[in-house]
């Protein structure tokens, strides 16, 4: 087991390095000038009057953008290992500070979402499989099929329209610190959480339902019935336990989907989190922030997949020695 974990860990680090290289290449090679927006800002604030090529070259040199890509990458990587994520080109702030301020908000909403989608989806899926063909199964399956197709941002706007404007029950957008005003925070995150949870629960419920139905036809379940075991034991020990194995593998993907969803809900509901930070940085070509946020997002997903791999190796010994 230890060698298995170490091997997974090394692969995870390699993949994270590949991710950072990839993002680095995107920033450097895709058309678009890392300094364009920056220089526009400077000109707007009157700090430089000419935007001639000399000024551009000077800044390129100042930010080290004139060096070969691999040199820039190694320097950046060295800085990251020392805990420096760089300085924003656009807003001039330290990227590490920015992230320290925004990551907790995204993580907080993300964690709530993870718990709700996982447990909601698993319960709904198991219930549907056990009562297959009942009206509740049909209703949930239909909602799940529709829920898979609903764009997060659109559903968020629909919820704002209904519960914010029409009914006036919940605030339209914004963020409140949960340590200062807990209930205010809850009121502010209900709609964002609901808009991502719909699709998440839908996908999870569909998967759990199909895994359960698959397991229910397995030979060992028939054997268990033939042995005369009680239904409770069969459902819990034989069916649910085995149906969960494939479900565990998608949990890493669930984390990714929640992070992807955060980009949209933070835009729709004006929540100053990581997703919003990354989108505005991409807009402003603030490449230092782009690199750092991509590093964090990639790191979180890779780490979740690592946990999933370890859990899977633990659940199913065949994997460990494969």
């Amino acid at each position, binding site marked *: 087991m230890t060698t298995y974990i170490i091997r997974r860990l090394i*692969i995870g680090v*390699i*993949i*994270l390095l*590949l*991710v950072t*290289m*990839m*993002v680095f290449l*995107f*920033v450097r090679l*895709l*058309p*678009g000038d890392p300094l364009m927006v920056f220089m526009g800002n400077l000109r707007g604030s009157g700090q430089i009057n000419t935007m001639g090529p000399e000024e551009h070259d000077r800044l390129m040199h100042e930010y080290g953008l004139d060096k070969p890509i691999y040199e820039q990458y190694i320097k950046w990587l060295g800085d990251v290992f020392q805990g420096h994520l760089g300085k924003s080109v656009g807003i001039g702030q330290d990227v590490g500070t920015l992230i320290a301020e925004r990551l907790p908000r995204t993580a907080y909403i993300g964690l709530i979402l993870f718990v709700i989608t996982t447990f909601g989806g698993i319960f709904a899926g198991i219930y549907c499989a056990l009562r297959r063909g009942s009206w509740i199964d049909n209703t949930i399956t239909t909602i799940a*099929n*529709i829920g*898979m*197709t*609903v*764009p*997060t*941002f*659109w*559903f968020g*706007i*629909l919820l*704002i*329209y209904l519960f914010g*404007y029409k009914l006036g029950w919940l605030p339209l957008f914004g963020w409140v610190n949960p340590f200062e005003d807990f209930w205010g925070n809850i009121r502010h995150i209900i709609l964002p959480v609901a808009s991502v949870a719909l699709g998440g629960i839908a996908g999870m419920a*569909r998967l759990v339902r*199909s895994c359960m*139905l*698959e397991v229910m036809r397995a030979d060992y379940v028939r054997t268990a019935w033939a042995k005369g075991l009680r239904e409770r034991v069969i459902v819990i020990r034989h069916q649910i336990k085995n149906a969960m194995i494939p479900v565990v593998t998608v949990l890493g993907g669930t984390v*990714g*989907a929640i*992070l*992807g969803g955060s*980009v*949209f809900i933070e*835009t*729709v509901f004006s929540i100053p989190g990581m997703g919003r930070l*990354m*989108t505005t940085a*991409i*807009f402003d*070509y603030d490449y230092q922030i*782009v690199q750092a946020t*991509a590093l964090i*997002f*990639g790191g979180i*997903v*890779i780490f979740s*997949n690592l946990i999933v791999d370890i859990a899977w190796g633990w659940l199913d010994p065949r994997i460990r020695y494969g």
Partner: protein
Amino acid sequence: MADKATVTPPSPDAIGVTAAPPRRSEWRRFARVYFGRRLYLIGFVIVVIIILTAIFAPLLAPYDPIQNDLRGKLQGPSLEHWLGTDQLGRDILSRIIYGTRISLEIGFAAVFSSAIIGALMGLTAAHFGGWVFTLIMRVTDALMALPGIILVLLIAGLGGRGIPVVIFALGFGGVAGMCRMMCGQALSVKQNDYVLAGRAIGMSNWRIMLTQIFPNAFPPLIVGLTMAIGGVVLGEAGLSFLGIGVPAPNPSWGGMVMDGQRYLLDNALLSLAPGVAIMLLVFGFNMVGDGVRDAIDPKLRGVL
């Protein structure tokens, strides 16, 4: 009714019969399973209607989709403008109808390009194995480590603005998934004797890949491709919603949802109606994908 084909007594011309009918009944069987479930039928009808709408957009749309009319802006639904008008006085219904074109164009183009590149990568990995396999798989791991929409957002955002950039970004986003699917299929096809036979008669690696493995590994991927169209359309809508997708005057569903967010109290349909269009399209393609998979693989029928 559909069973009739299998019950028909053999005609005197026995050789002709055995040559032709198996193929026809295979299609019949496919159609019977596919159209046997109402959801799949609905999905099929939706897809057909959407494609027809895209083709005949100029005939169907009552107004020009990009012609401003500032005097008539933000009207509610009326007999002239069934869904009302947007913040620049453009007819929302017409913009949704023309938006079908953009969504489908981007959807097909992105899926097609990611299918070609991903399939080539997957084939190469499966066929050569060894370090080539490891390298390609690690690259796809890296591509998949970033949540799909974030990868697409990065490429589209850093790549500049315009429809080709959006197609490139969405296509790039789909490469890793396509490569994985192709690789899995190709690895199992590779075990077949005809591949060995090809090697025995001295076919080159590339020839075996393209003439033996590819044609046999591809059909199951059609399901994945159909499903991918829905995903890509959702992705395009998301990009346009964030303002990084289809540029301004073009009618894009995601962009319309974004425009409408500020005018929810004036005309909520500006935001809400295009979303329904997105959902219909994604639902249609998902159902067609599900249906084709069911019809190809009877084991999964009714499970998913």
